[in-house]
């Protein structure tokens, strides 16, 4: 087993444990922290695949901005521990096994379907440059559209959060 495979398994274990912890933890801030762990582990996996730019963006935007917003809101609302109600007991005994069944199914079929896939060569060093070029030429229209999407989201957030007079 090469060093890369070992690193993969470590990062994968961290990611899966983080995701499980997201479910198990009852306090939202702990769930948020678990999700941050998953995101950092995924950034490590992107690095392992040679996608440096995606890894950096994953940490800067996802872990460093979006999740900070989550943590901020949890702190602002002073959210306490989750309550358990009758319906969530049904979720525990019926939904949870079904969900895990779905997960195993997914993993099983994806694993079976891609078993014969050969490993591709590692990426070229100039990938960041090529990626940026692609983003600003072939994908220019979607790129501009996302900026409009962001603008709309900002306006929406401002309107929603505005105090009613």
């Amino acid at each position: 087993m090469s060093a890369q495979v070992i690193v993969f398994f470590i990062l994968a274990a961290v990611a899966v444990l983080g995701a499980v912890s997201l479910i198990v933890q009852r306090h939202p801030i702990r769930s948020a922290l678990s999700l941050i762990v998953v995101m950092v582990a995924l950034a490590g996996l992107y690095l392992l695949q040679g996608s440096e730019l995606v890894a950096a963006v994953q940490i800067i935007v996802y872990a460093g901005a979006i999740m900070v917003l989550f943590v901020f809101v949890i702190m602002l609302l002073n959210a306490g521990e989750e309550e358990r109600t009758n319906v969530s007991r049904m979720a525990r005994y019926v939904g949870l096994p079904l969900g895990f069944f779905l997960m195993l199914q997914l993993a099983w079929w994806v694993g079976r379907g891609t078993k014969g896939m050969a490993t591709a060569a590692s990426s070229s060093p100039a990938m960041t440059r090529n990626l940026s070029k692609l983003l600003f030429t072939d994908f220019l229209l979607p790129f501009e559209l996302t900026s409009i999407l962001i603008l709309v989201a900002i306006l929406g957030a401002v309107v929603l959060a505005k105090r009613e007079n």
Partner: protein
Amino acid sequence: MVPSSYYLVLSAVLFGLGVVAFMFKRNIITIFMSIELMLNAVNLAFVTFSRHLGNLNGQVFVFFVIVVAAAEAAVGLAIIILIAKHRQSLNVERVDLLKL
């Protein structure tokens, strides 16, 4: 080199865990976070296929997914703050009317 299928299985497992979290959690913020988990799992699949096929389009899509997630978080959290203000609770069971 790590085979691509390993990454894809991991992606599927994370997605499944996201689905489980989505159904199991009762707190709106945590439910929202499990959606982010699913998006992350999809991103992993995108990057893996992008490397496997030697085509960078997949990684461009990851950027778009991240941008959409950011926009979603901004609006979603604003809605959550409003709900929390009106209902004094973050439990989804208490949010059962189609108005604030």
